[in-house]
């Protein structure tokens, strides 16, 4: 036995074949989902329908990629695989921003402001929250899932309570208009915002990709990474800023989808059996887009819009979250 092992060159070294296969399979699924979504049951003006659907595909891809990659980044810098940016309060913060802005400017006036300006404002607030989160909690609770989760519960609760308070101050008619903006829907995606979002996500992904090896070292743990020459504080700060961008874009585009990142990232860890970001990041990014497009396709074509993809994903994601939590308890 040991003779065979000796004969293997570099026995025990990381072999990427499994990860590559997983990435390829997810890629094929993505292409299938896009093809199905684009071509199934086309009626009426072909170019109009295709353009409409293509826009939706781009939006869903941005959302899926953004949320999934943000989750993987957050997992690595926080040292756990259960919590997600959404659970830390990013979703609730988005709702709070919308509500407060609607109260300050008036809902209709607020909705009339150029989407790109609104988007920059949202991004700035979320970035601030990400860095605060890093400074106040991440650095102190490194790896302590329970403490971090408590912080997330408290912050989400606080943001929601504040949103409710402000919502009471808003004119009921305006509030209805506002509420429509708060839940994920792909039916009404703004074209200008789509372009800005694509640029933002693409830039963020370039930065993430350049950090992929450093993130591997950070995944070993804070002290090991430091000893190996990684500036962990800086890497974490940059990663959290990227998390803010990658979460802000989807929420601004379509609203909140709480458990998508959790679902895709953990499925990818399970399938690839590695933490190496050069494989987990592309795999979970494409998986995120695939799940969204697939779910939306099924809902549009077979459930006739009677439910929303975000709700279906929240349902299954919530179950996955509980399973993961119980598994963590047993460890």
């Amino acid at each position, binding site marked *: 036995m*040991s003779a065979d*092992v*000796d004969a*293997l060159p*570099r*026995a*025990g*070294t*990381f072999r990427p074949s499994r990860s590559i296969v997983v990435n390829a399979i997810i890629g094929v699924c993505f292409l299938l989902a896009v093809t199905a979504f684009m071509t199934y049951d086309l009626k009426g003006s072909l170019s109009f329908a295709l353009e409409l659907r293509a826009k939706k595909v781009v939006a869903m891809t941005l959302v899926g990629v953004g949320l999934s990659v943000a989750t993987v980044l957050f997992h690595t810098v926080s*040292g756990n695989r259960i919590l997600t940016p959404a659970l830390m309060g990013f979703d609730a913060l988005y709702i709070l921003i919308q509500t407060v802005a609607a109260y300050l400017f008036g809902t209709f006036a607020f909705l009339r402001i150029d989407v790109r300006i609104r988007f920059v404002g949202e991004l700035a607030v979320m970035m601030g929250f990400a860095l605060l989160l890093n400074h106040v909690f991440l650095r102190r609770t490194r*790896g302590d899932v329970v403490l971090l989760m408590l912080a997330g519960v408290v912050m989400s609760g606080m943001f929601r309570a504040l949103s409710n308070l402000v919502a009471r101050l808003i004119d009921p008619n305006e509030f209805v208009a506002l509420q429509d903006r708060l839940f994920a829907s792909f039916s009404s995606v703004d074209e200008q915002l789509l372009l800005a979002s694509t640029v933002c996500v693409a830039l963020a992904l370039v930065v993430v990709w350049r950090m*992929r*090896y*450093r993130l*591997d*070292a950070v*995944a*070993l*743990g804070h*002290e*090991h990474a*430091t*000893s*190996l*020459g*990684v*500036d962990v504080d800086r890497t974490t700060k940059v990663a959290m800023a990227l998390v803010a961008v990658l979460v802000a874009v989807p929420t601004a585009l379509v609203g909140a989808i709480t458990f998508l990142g959790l679902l895709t990232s953990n499925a990818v860890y399970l399938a690839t059996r590695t*933490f190496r970001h050069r494989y987990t990041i592309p795999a979970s990014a494409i998986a995120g887009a695939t799940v969204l497009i697939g779910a939306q396709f099924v809902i549009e074509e077979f459930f006739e819009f009677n439910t929303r993809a975000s709700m279906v994903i929240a349902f299954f994601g919530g179950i996955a979250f509980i399973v993961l939590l119980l598994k963590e308890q047993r460890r």
Partner: protein
Amino acid sequence: MIDVRSLVKRYGDTTVLDCPELTIDGAGVTALVGANGAGKSTLLTIAGRLLEPTSGTVLIDGHDVSTAPSRQLAARVAILRQENVLAVRLTVRELVEFGRFPYSQGRLTDEDHHLVDRALMTLDLHEFAPRRLDELSGGQRQRAFIAAVVAQDTDHVLLDEPLNNLDLRHAAQSMAMIRRLADDFGKTVVVVLHDINVAAHHADRIVAMRDGRIVADGTPNEVVVASTMRDVFGLDVEITEHRGRPVVLHFVA
């Protein structure tokens, strides 16, 4: 060369480390000894830049550990902490490959692979290379982490209580390995030890600490004397000799 200058670490009003001056240079094993809470690990951890001092500096080859780029330092100093729990699952070989990170930034060259092989061979770990770390015994895991330090190939190696949780045989093997780092590889090794006899037998130099201060510094024969031991550990002990090295009969008291 490790050069400590007026280093102070305080938590609130409590001073846990107050080290005006300490220089460690050249190949050899320097042991930091003292009672619990004497500040040994604090000193080592600050030197390994895993902890920020309240004031003062540690220079490694002239580079200030709190300000020099982490990547530069990683080629000069490696630190191994007591609890080596990884957040991810690795094989022995993958761990040792991470030792090359300061040089390759994750993309290993042929030379890196060669050095990894050598480190595995040095610690007699070749047959364990494909095994996962969490499947190994404490002693084997310790050896794997030391192999990663060997692969990191720094002139300075800082080890924080490497014998913790090791049985007698593995402790003896680990100390022999630490000796080799100094003798065969010419490294400056600083090791925190709580067993004074292990320090007296294996170290070239002993730095004894109490209440955050250095109270004695010298060869084992200079430091391990009854009066100093009383000073450091607050214990009256008999001291005998074995192979020219002092042996403290601390269990007799």
